[in-house]
């Protein structure tokens, strides 16, 4: 599919003022010079009102007047400038993330403003209390602080209040519940103290606390948004579009969101099928390895069902789009996926578990303090209440609430640099608990592209000639052959016989490349080669007057697969292979990798059953897989990883996606996660020690605002520094970062 017949305008969205807007992921933006080249080059096009490159996300935002130019013209100009653009599907983007980040930033700025201004007044009061401030001035300062603090807390506290309310509504508790109680309690106490013109009020502490917490939360959110934006760019590279056949017979390439059930879609040879559907006409071979894990090709004809993510190897197909067809593989996968995801949501995060233990202890000790002072001393109820609330203030889980997010931010930043994009922060702690690693074979342990076998035995001249011919082929094996020989110049005139091979006349001789049958290879020779290389795929090359030659290809293991498996074993982990492929192919891969536990010819249900069995035996399983058939298992496993070449559904079901051709990120993820978990536990202990020291002081009634402010910021800074310590001596990165090698200009941080 060339760029000209892609319906670029379908990717654009109209704006209120009549102009049109489109976002593009642009390949090859590396520096500021690219930015001005693109902006200047596009700005000169008539009709383009705005072209703005975002150097951070490597995206281009375009506005133009629809009458004067078109999306196609703009993209062609971009291509002449030397940049390839990939459209975002407007139906898939959500503005929710953006809005949430902006809300956090607004809350943070308001809290920062409040903290600074209240501190200005508080420092004056502290200094005055030590010297000669008079009561009316102090009251005035407290009242002004209250006037600033009340609206600031009402505005900036909303993210915490909302989350606490949501948790309480379903009778659960999370970290935001004690935060909300602490904040509201402190504010009420300070107002009460101000009214009876007492010496101390805690407006400064409570606003500063909010500011710290919001900062932590914003950083956490920002990190996740950055990984997601890279993931989106990568997704845009793998075109999310389909060639739709319009009623008048013309073909336009449109975004997936504009294809609906009942539409007719054209799938050319060598292309991935982008939809689920039924073949209307045409016959072809389909490579389903990404979907079922099976490496043998499947023949399809009219009436056969094809799945999104499979590769059309043979001829041209017209496919009628179906909605989730009942009783098909996809339907089964979806049902399994739902139940697996539900089971997973029961996992209690470390932070929430800590909060669950923490809240009752703190609230009980505050209550006992109130009872104790009220009944056992001659102080009144009001004074006892003040002391009880001061216990709440000093224990307000500032450090505790930062203890885990701070580590998560640092860790996901480190993983990001190693080419691992996390979907959720709590995946880190789940990764650290893993004791068994389960791999899918096809596409995970093996590379998605096939590899030439027994290369040394092939005549180099023959190989090169075959490679040149292969350059003209769109068949995946043809492409692989062309890659091997690094051939560049294909012959000028090539005839293609769909599903069989290609033919060209070179130096007056007819040469053919394609299936052994097409090149007239003796079936016995084919059988002999297949006996030597079990499960190999064959391509034949024949030149007039010479004997035909067979090239055998197999799905090659990733370069570092063996090394990674060995390192996983050295870390004390059990390794297993669960595959949908044939027994022989799986057994061979398992033998090469030194893995004794493997199972073949498994469907999605069998994979889940095996994972359940492991879970029942008390194992925590890391699942690494890429196919559609792995998606339910990825969701059911304790934690899961998937390569960036995986199908959409699997990427969405996995906890993290890794970039690149290597498997090393699996080890990196595990080692980094283990160190991160250790830091989390240290941080939790630091908070506990802080509370053990601070609570008796508070119970005894000695907490002044100065002590509260110092103790709280001190503990927050301590846990943040401990988290940052992870970066020092970053340690095991698993070799060179794979990101730079695969997605130039995209995955750089």
């Amino acid at each position, binding site marked *: 599919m060339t760029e000209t017949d892609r319906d670029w305008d379908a990717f654009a969205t109209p704006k209120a003022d009549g102009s049109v807007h489109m976002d593009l992921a642009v390949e090859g933006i590396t520096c*500021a010079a690219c*930015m*001005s080249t693109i*902006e*200047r080059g596009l*700005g000169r096009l008539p009709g383009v009102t705005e072209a703005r*490159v*975002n*150097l*951070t*996300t490597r995206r281009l935002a375009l506005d133009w007047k629809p009458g004067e130019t078109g999306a196609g013209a703009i993209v062609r100009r971009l291509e002449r400038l030397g940049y390839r653009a990939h459209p975002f599907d407007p139906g898939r983007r959500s503005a929710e993330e953006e809005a949430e980040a*902006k809300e956090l*930033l*607004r809350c943070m*700025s*308001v809290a920062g*403003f409040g903290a*600074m*201004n209240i501190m*200005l*007044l508080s420092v004056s009061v502290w200094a005055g209390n030590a010297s000669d401030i008079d009561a009316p*001035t102090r009251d*005035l300062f407290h009242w*002004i602080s209250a006037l*600033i603090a009340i609206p600031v807390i009402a505005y900036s506290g909303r993210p915490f209040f909302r989350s606490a309310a949501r948790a309480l509504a379903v009778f659960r508790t999370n970290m935001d519940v004690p935060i909300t109680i602490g904040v509201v309690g402190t504010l009420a106490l300070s107002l009460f103290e101000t009214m009876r013109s007492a010496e101390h009020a805690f407006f400064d502490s409570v606003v500063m606390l909010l500011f710290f917490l919001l900062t932590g939360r914003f950083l956490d959110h920002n990190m996740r948004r950055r990984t997601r934006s890279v993931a989106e760019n990568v997704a845009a590279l793998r075109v999310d579009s389909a060639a739709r056949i319009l009623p008048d017979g013309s073909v336009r390439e449109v975004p997936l969101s504009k294809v609906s059930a009942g539409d007719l879609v054209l799938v050319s040879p060598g292309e991935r099928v982008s939809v689920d559907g039924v073949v209307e006409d045409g016959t072809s071979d389909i490579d389903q390895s990404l979907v079922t894990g099976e490496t043998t090709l499947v023949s399809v004809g009219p009436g056969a069902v094809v799945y999104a993510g499979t590769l059309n190897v043979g001829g041209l197909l017209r496919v009628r789009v179906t909605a989730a067809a009942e009783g098909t593989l996809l339907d089964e996968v979806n049902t399994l996926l739902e139940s697996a995801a539900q089971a997973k949501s029961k996992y209690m995060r470390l932070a929430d578990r800590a909060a669950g233990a923490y809240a009752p202890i703190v609230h009980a000790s505050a209550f006992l303090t109130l009872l104790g002072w009220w009944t056992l001393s001659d102080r009144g109820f009001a004074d006892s209440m003040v002391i009880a609330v001061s216990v709440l203030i000093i224990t307000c889980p500032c450090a505790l609430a930062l203890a885990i997010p701070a580590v998560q931010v640092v860790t996901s930043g480190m993983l990001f640099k190693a080419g691992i994009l996390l979907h959720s922060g709590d995946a880190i702690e789940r990764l650290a608990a893993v004791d068994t690693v389960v791999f899918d074979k096809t596409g995970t342990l093996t590379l998605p592209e096939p590899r030439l076998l027994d290369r040394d035995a092939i005549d180099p001249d023959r190989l090169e000639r075959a490679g040149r011919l292969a350059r003209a082929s769109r068949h995946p094996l043809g492409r692989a052959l062309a890659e091997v020989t690094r051939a560049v110049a294909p012959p000028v005139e090539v005839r293609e016989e769909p599903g069989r091979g290609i033919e060209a006349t070179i130096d007056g001789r007819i040469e053919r490349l394609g299936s052994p049958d097409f090149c007239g290879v003796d079936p016995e020779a084919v059988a002999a080669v297949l006996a030597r290389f079990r499960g190999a795929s064959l391509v034949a090359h024949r030149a007039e007057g010479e004997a035909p030659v067979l090239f055998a290809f197999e799905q090659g293991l990733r370069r570092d697969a063996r090394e990674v498996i060995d390192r996983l074993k050295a870390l004390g982990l059990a390794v297993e292979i669960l595959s949908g492929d044939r027994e022989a192919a799986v057994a061979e891969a398992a033998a090469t990798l030194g893995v004794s536990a493997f199972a073949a010819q498994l469907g999605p249900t069998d994979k889940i059953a095996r994972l359940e069995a492991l879970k029942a035996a008390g194992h925590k399983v890391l699942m690494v897989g890429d196919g559609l058939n792995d998606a339910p298992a990825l969701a059911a496993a304790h934690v899961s990883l998937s390569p960036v070449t995986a199908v959409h559904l699997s990427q969405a079901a996995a906890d993290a996606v890794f970039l690149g051709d290597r498997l090393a990120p699996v080890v990196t993820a595990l080692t980094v996660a283990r160190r991160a978990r250790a830091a989390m536990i240290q941080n939790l202990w630091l908070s506990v020690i802080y509370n053990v020291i601070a609570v008796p002081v508070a119970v005894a009634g000695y907490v002044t605002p100065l002590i509260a402010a110092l103790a709280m910021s001190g503990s927050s800074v301590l846990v943040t520094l401990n988290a940052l310590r992870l970066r020092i001596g970053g340690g095991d990165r698993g070799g060179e970062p794979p990101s730079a090698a695969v997605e130039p200009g995209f995955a750089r941080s």
Partner: protein
Amino acid sequence: MDVLIFLIPIAIGLGLLGLFAFMWSLKSGQYEDLEGAGWRILDDSDLPERPPVVKSTEASKAE
């Protein structure tokens, strides 16, 4: 201490000014591309084709 009547409102007013300036910069999308913004200042494409400084020195030489 009467001066406080002026000083405190001024202090808070300045704080509010800073807050509104930040809110405005956030709303106008100034934090969307932190990397690119630094380079944009070096981009001269908003100037006329030939830098006017060179022109004026050439003109003064001719006189």
